[in-house]
């Protein structure tokens, strides 16, 4: 497909591709199998500026754009969905929330080290009783003298424990519903802030997912992100951008599995002929390729809209809805074309099928994407 990419985007894609193949793919199986956070790879990405791709140079970023960031997440996800989500949660959730809603002091103090790759970020909205319905938050923040005192527990938080800087959401006024939610920045190591045990997951098993526990955790008043009571809007706006990252991750997973399958069907012989010669194989491949390209257009379009300052909330929702469906469908078909060899761990598609499912769930389920899209139609 010719998107008329600029030469810099093409070269950046080549860089991300080379890095993914040389530095990430060799570790993907161990990352998954050992449920092991790929610290060394993250370290390398931090050094190379991969953790600050869309942010301005003035604040320590790489001075690129959302499209370049999408290409990064996509290339990483082709070989390792875990590595891709670490970058995505850090960049388009944690760091971007501060980039969009932080004041100058907060940007200097928190966004700069995130964008420079000196620190890792995480974003925590979900709670045990508040998943899709974020208005049900139970975590409370109470103003006490020169600090906020936070109490409550977040669940399923990506990069938890590994990250240094957390953007979290808590009720500052429980009676006000979503208007009572505020956003805060909290650093690891703050007294009263601890982590739960790691969750055992179906996929993206190398990424860290666990609870954030706040027990009388005191943070300075200045760590309020945006205005008091505006947290819900901050969460929703940040998730719009985050969904572009997850869409790119889903696209990458589908492409990765597809590439492995193309190789496999040409090699695997049954009835004395490569299985690629069967019309069913050919038609399944043709359908998959078409779905992948359609998904690709949606995610690149959402990224381009964000970069050009146009509204992109609906585009991001459509991109995530489509890309995550494609990721699940394509990886399942790829396993099918591998036969028994797809069900065992030998050819990576088994892992990719497990990894794909989460893209239909986090940062808003597919049902939520449909609510966002239909909401814009029936206003």
């Amino acid at each position, binding site marked *: 497909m010719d998107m008329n990419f*600029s*030469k*810099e985007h093409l*070269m*950046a894609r080549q*860089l991300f591709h*080379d*890095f993914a193949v040389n530095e990430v793919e060799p570790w993907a199986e161990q990352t998954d199998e050992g449920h092991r956070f790929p610290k060394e790879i993250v370290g390398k990405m931090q050094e*190379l*500026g*991969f953790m600050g*791709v869309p942010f301005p*140079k003035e604040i320590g*970023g*790489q*001075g*690129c754009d959302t499209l*370049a960031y999408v290409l*990064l997440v996509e290339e990483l996800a082709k070989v390792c969905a875990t590595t891709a989500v670490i970058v995505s949660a850090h960049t388009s959730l944690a760091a971007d929330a501060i980039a969009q809603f932080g004041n100058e002091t907060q940007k200097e103090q928190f966004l700069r080290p995130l964008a420079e790759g000196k620190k890792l970020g995480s974003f925590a909205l979900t709670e045990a009783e508040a998943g899709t319905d974020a208005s049900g938050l139970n975590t409370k923040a109470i103003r006490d003298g020169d600090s906020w005192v936070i109490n409550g527990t977040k669940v399923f938080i990506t990069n938890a424990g590994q990250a240094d800087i957390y953007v979290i959401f808590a009720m500052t006024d429980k009676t006000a519903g979503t208007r009572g939610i505020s956003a805060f920045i909290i650093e690891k190591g703050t007294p009263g802030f601890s982590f739960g045990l790691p969750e055992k997951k179906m996929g993206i098993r190398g990424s860290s997912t666990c609870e954030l526990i706040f027990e009388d955790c005191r943070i300075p008043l200045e760590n309020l992100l945006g205005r008091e009571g505006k947290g819900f809007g901050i969460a929703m706006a940040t998730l719009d951008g985050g969904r572009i990252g997850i869409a790119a991750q889903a696209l990458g997973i589908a492409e990765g599995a597809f590439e492995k399958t193309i190789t496999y069907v040409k090699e695997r012989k049954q009835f004395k002929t490569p299985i690629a010669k069967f019309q069913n194989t050919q038609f399944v491949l043709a359908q998959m390729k078409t779905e992948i390209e359609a998904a690709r257009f949606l995610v690149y379009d959402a990224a381009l809209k964000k970069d050009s300052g146009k509204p992109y909330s609906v585009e991001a929702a459509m991109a995530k809805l489509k890309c995550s469906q494609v990721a699940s469908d394509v990886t399942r078909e790829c396993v099918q074309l591998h036969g028994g060899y797809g069900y065992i761990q030998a050819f990576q598609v088994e892992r990719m099928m497990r990894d794909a499912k989460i893209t239909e769930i986090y940062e808003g389920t597919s049902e939520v994407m449909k609510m966002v899209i239909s909401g814009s139609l029936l206003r």
Partner: protein
Amino acid sequence: MNIIVCIKQVPDTKEVRIDPVKGTLIRQGVPSIMNPDDKAALEAALRIKDGMGAKVIALSMGPLQADAVLREAMAMGADEGILVSDPQFGGADTWATSATLAAAITKLEYDLVLAGRQAIDGDTAQVGPEIAEHLGIPHISYAKELRIEGDEVIVKRQFEDRYQLLSAKMPVLVTALSELNQPRYMTPRGIFEAYREKQVTHWQRNDIPVESENIGLKGSPTRVIETNPKVMKAPGTKIEEDVEKSVQYLIEKLKEKYIL
């Protein structure tokens, strides 16, 4: 200190297939890359820059699309890129290539000129040393280690079974083996700056002080009479190490030859 790095854009021979009938390379649709030895030369220059400060200038002769390897060099950290490009330079053999590049270099200030040992397409390993001869400066080829001490460059020069430790006063030309180092990755920021904020300087025929009889196809004494796929095989190498070392060695050799 000024360092000039000579960089050739070459077809990625990992992706090249041989026409089974004609025995020639099928270049169509093959991606172009920075010649691997030249990347090592550039990395060496960038390490000197990181360590003691230096200005690194990447220089290439080739068609306009060779612009890409110079942008890549800048995205890795080179300060400038110069592309020598003119239809009149086309079809150059090693004599004409080195005469043209040397003449371009005389327009610049330099302490050290670095080249790759060998280009993976032309494969002659002649251009580096020939540039030094045209410039009238010493050269050291096959560098597997390189460092600067005062006004001298100290080089470990690789042979099949041993090495020499040589030093030479600058200005000097050194040709790099890919074993010299592990080149760094570009950065996203470097890439965007290379395209959006920096320029590649273009030098055409009239910018280069070189005699017309030494350039392009007409200035090239070499004639390619026939190209044949290699039939002669060199005697094999026997690896007598423990399993781990042998495998390591084998993998390195296969990568070196672009088989892996």
